[in-house]
């Protein structure tokens, strides 16, 4: 193989940083080898089902696994770049870089001219009683199981940690059908982006601030958890314990950079808590103190995938430049200013503090406030309401608006403003916003009703005319509304439009299906659910009496008083036959249950 003879650049780690670095180094014509542990490359991207923030040049509003596909597709077109999967760089030695191929259990010593370490991070683990019980997972493992392999780790989950990962994984667990009982956060405020927190809150997940986990309960596996309140010094307060019945405890306590190889390569590392732990010393070309070794991504400080990709590109370009390849200096400069722009917002404050300790000076921006244009003035017009409360580096709403009605501006961290005069009500921004923070509203002026358009990422999508529960920002049921329209195009977020009472226009922010709960009984006597009936109809039982005989519907004490019509309506809905054309089945006497005694003794009096 080529990489054994003339290897220019070895990249350890095939996540967003490593792949971005490989693309840039590869473009210069260098022979590049990416060594990745995974069965498939892509790092964390392959298990990330949410849409990314950022700007559209860097895959904003694209789902993580799709980003991985795009990066890998670009690499597959480069003959000089190879990816070695199921392989690990086991050290960096004086004689070269030994790589373990796990599949055939062989080590090969490679001699690259430059090394880019994009080894990412590992999960922080919490110490609490019984934390070795099966059922205690790291959030990364949960994402791997659930999103990569389609295995749900449990049914009832307690999430520890409210950073972006804790919030996102909670939301994904609910999407996959699990029940997240609570998100527990030791700090006095939510760690992750407000838009991610709002997505989880709309599902009705409680957020318990100033709480931490005390112990896991259970014999051979997790059967519950005890959490407790903490004081301002993060010490547990006795007597403030709460118990949860859960089968899974998911730890999302943050990440720490994987700097082992940096250190082995001779690079200096320093402990900088704001960046997640030990991080390499490096310059703004991503070069470590070991001159032939670059870093990129979470290994250089915990951030997120967009900055990881930018760092990867910077490292890749510099490795090429080192090896006397011609590179686009202007591009390198742009990347550097882009990443500075990204980090200029308030959500990057901690990262800025950490980088300052490493010797960088970084700008922090002041941001535009919400626009003066008043949404109330346009009553009756179909228009978006943008609920993007904190400055985060993200602007797909601006770039996707076909009429230029939304402005984020020069600084990508600014809060978007909207000009309702220009807005045509097309709703594209709703389907593009990675934070699901834009909704459509329209008051129906001839009635007390309104239509609200909600970005909705749950399957199955509701159908037009279906009745659904309308939920508040906290996941409380406000009312039942009817779906008027569902849009679902390509990679865009589906948007469901639901008719609601106008009074809920400022509070209704989510929906949930009415009929798919496990406990929606059609027949309470015999405990037959809507799902049971629908399944039987799908199996071909399309007569009321067949359903009765198959499921025991209407065979209980009520004699079908409550369930007969409900069953017929479900049958009508499923078959398209109007209720009046269906056979309502037999009505057997007695119409109320009557004792042997009453019947037999009654006869004697009458005779």
């Amino acid at each position, binding site marked *: 193989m080529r990489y054994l003879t003339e290897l220019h650049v070895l990249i350890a780690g095939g996540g967003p940083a490593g792949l971005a670095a490989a693309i840039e180094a590869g473009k210069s014509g260098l022979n590049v080898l990416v060594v990745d542990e995974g069965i498939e490359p892509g790092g964390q991207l392959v298990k990330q089902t949410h849409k990314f923030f950022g700007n559209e040049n860097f895959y904003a509003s694209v789902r993580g696994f799709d980003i991985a596909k795009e990066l890998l597709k670009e690499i597959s077109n480069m003959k000089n770049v190879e990816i070695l999967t199921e392989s690990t760089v086991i050290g960096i030695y004086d004689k070269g870089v030994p790589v373990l191929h796990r599949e055939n259990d062989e080590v090969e010593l490679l001699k690259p001219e430059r090394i880019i370490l994009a080894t990412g991070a590992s999960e922080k683990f919490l110490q609490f009683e019984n934390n070795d019980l099966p059922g205690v997972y790291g959030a990364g493992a949960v994402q791997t199981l659930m999103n990569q392999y389609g295995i749900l780790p449990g049914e009832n989950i307690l999430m520890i940690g409210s950073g972006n990962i804790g919030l996102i994984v909670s939301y994904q667990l609910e999407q996959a059908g699990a029940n997240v009982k609570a998100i527990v956060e030791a700090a006095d405020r939510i760690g992750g982006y407000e838009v991610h927190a709002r997505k989880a809150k709309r599902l009705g997940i409680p957020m318990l601030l100033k709480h931490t986990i005390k112990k896991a309960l259970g014999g051979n596996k997790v059967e519950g958890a005890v959490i407790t309140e903490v004081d301002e010094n993060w010490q547990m307060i006795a007597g403030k314990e709460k118990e949860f019945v859960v089968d899974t405890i998911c730890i999302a306590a943050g990440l720490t950079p994987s700097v082992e190889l940096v250190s082995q390569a001779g690079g200096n590392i320093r402990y900088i808590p704001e960046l997640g732990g030990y991080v390499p010393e490096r310059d703004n070309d991503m070069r470590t103190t070991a001159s032939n070794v670059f870093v990129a991504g979470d290994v250089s400080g915990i951030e997120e995938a967009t900055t990881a990709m930018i760092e990867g590109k910077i490292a890749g370009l510099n490795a090429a430049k080192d090896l006397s390849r011609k590179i686009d200096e202007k591009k390198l400069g742009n990347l550097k200013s882009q990443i500075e722009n990204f980090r200029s917002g308030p959500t990057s404050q901690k990262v800025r503090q950490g980088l300052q300790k490493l010797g960088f000076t970084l700008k922090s921006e002041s941001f535009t406030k919400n626009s003066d244009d008043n949404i109330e003035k346009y009553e009756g017009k179909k228009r978006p309401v943008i609920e993007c409360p904190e400055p985060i580096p993200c602007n797909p709403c601006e770039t996707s608006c076909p009429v230029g009605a939304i402005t984020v501006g020069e600084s990508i961290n600014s809060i978007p403003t909207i000009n309702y005069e220009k807005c045509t009500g097309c709703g594209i921004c709703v389907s593009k916003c990675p934070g699901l923070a834009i909704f459509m509203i329209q008051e129906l002026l001839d009635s007390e009703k309104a239509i609200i358009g909600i970005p909705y990422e749950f399957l199955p999508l509701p159908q037009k005319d279906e009745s659904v529960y309308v939920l508040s920002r906290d996941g409380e049921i406000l009312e039942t509304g009817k779906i008027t329209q569902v849009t679902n195009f390509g990679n865009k977020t589906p948007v469901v439009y639901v008719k609601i009472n106008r009074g809920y226009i400022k509070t209704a922010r989510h929906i949930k299906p009415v009929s798919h709960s496990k406990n929606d009984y059609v027949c309470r006597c*015999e405990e037959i659910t809507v799902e049971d009936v629908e399944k039987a109809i799908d*199996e*071909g*039982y399309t*007569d009321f*009496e*067949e359903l009765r*005989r*198959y499921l*025991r519907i209407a*065979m*209980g*004490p009520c*004699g079908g008083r409550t369930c007969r019509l409900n069953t017929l309506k479900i049958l009508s809905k499923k078959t398209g036959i109007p209720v009046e054309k269906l*056979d309502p089945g*037999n009505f*057997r*006497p*007695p119409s109320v*249950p*009557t*004792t*042997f*005694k009453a*019947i*037999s003794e009654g*006869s004697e009096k009458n005779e």
Partner: protein
Amino acid sequence: MNKASVVIIGGGIIGTSIAYHLCKNGITDIVLLEKDYLSAGSTGRCGGGIRQQWSERANVRLAMRSVELFQKYSEEIGLDIEYYQGGYLLLAFTDEGVELFESNVKLQQEEGLDVKLLTKKEIAEKFSFINTSGVKAAAFCSSDGHANPHLATMGYAKAAENLGANIMTRTKAIGIDVINNKIQGVNTDKGYIKTGLVINAAGGYSHEVGQMAGVDLPTESYRHQIFVTEPVEHIMDPLVISFENNFYIRQTKAGNFVMGQSDDDEKPSHNENPGWRFLIEMTTKMPKFFPFLKQMRVLRHWAGLYNMSPDALPIIDKSTTISDFYYAVGFSGHGFMLAPAVGEAMAEWIAYGKTRKVDISNLNIKRFAKGVTREKNVV
């Protein structure tokens, strides 16, 4: 125009069992016609008992083969039909009754059935829910039992459908087209189906379907009533019968008690309306034998048809005048329990020209020419 190799008339347990067994033997080009919905007729209205204790040897054999097939049902068909082998307890209240059971048990034991006589003391010990005053003895077969007739019918129908049969519910046969004693097809309210072979499995309407082909079958239908109580905890394993006191009772898997009796005053008819006198007679009589019933409540009361033959045994044969007109009729209230073996035998007869597993030749229609020996174990 639709056509099929075989048209079965009747979507009860007999018709669906024949359909399934034909498919299993490779004949899948079948249409089954049901004028209402599956198990709408006698099957869906029956008590669901499955017994092997008969006074006629051929009935015992057929019933024993059926039990073998019921035991394999859920595995073979993939549906739990609530089959429960809690036994059948036949109570004798008179010396004549005891004598009959003694000779029956001897005959049944010769056929290999696990049946025995129980003394009054044994009955009281084993089945404490029975008031044994007046009871002399009982015959008990532990491999008898009961199942859910609706589910059994639906299971056979779905299995047949999966193998290629066409199950047409809400489709009524209105005529059988015969030219020169050969069947040409069946007329239905949904159109004509061309076929050369018809099976009459029409239960309560077997005589009428016979007439469609010009065949006069010696069957007539009688109303039989039945009711079910509210469900309670399981206490009753066996189905309990008394011929002398004219009742049967069993507890379903869901916990309801199902019970009924026959009525000598009934005239042949297709009347399926429940009557008040039945309810009074049963609610008065049953608590005498089962005191716990007094406080229980009746939930549903209905009626179905017993399609009677002259000797209360089924008629399974083919017409001698009309070619390829088969019938499995006149089950006299015991079609459900015999259906698996009858379906199998009928399918083998049609597929191979003769039955393989069990002999049904004694159930031919010619037997009535020699005079009638009536099955005695009938409620």
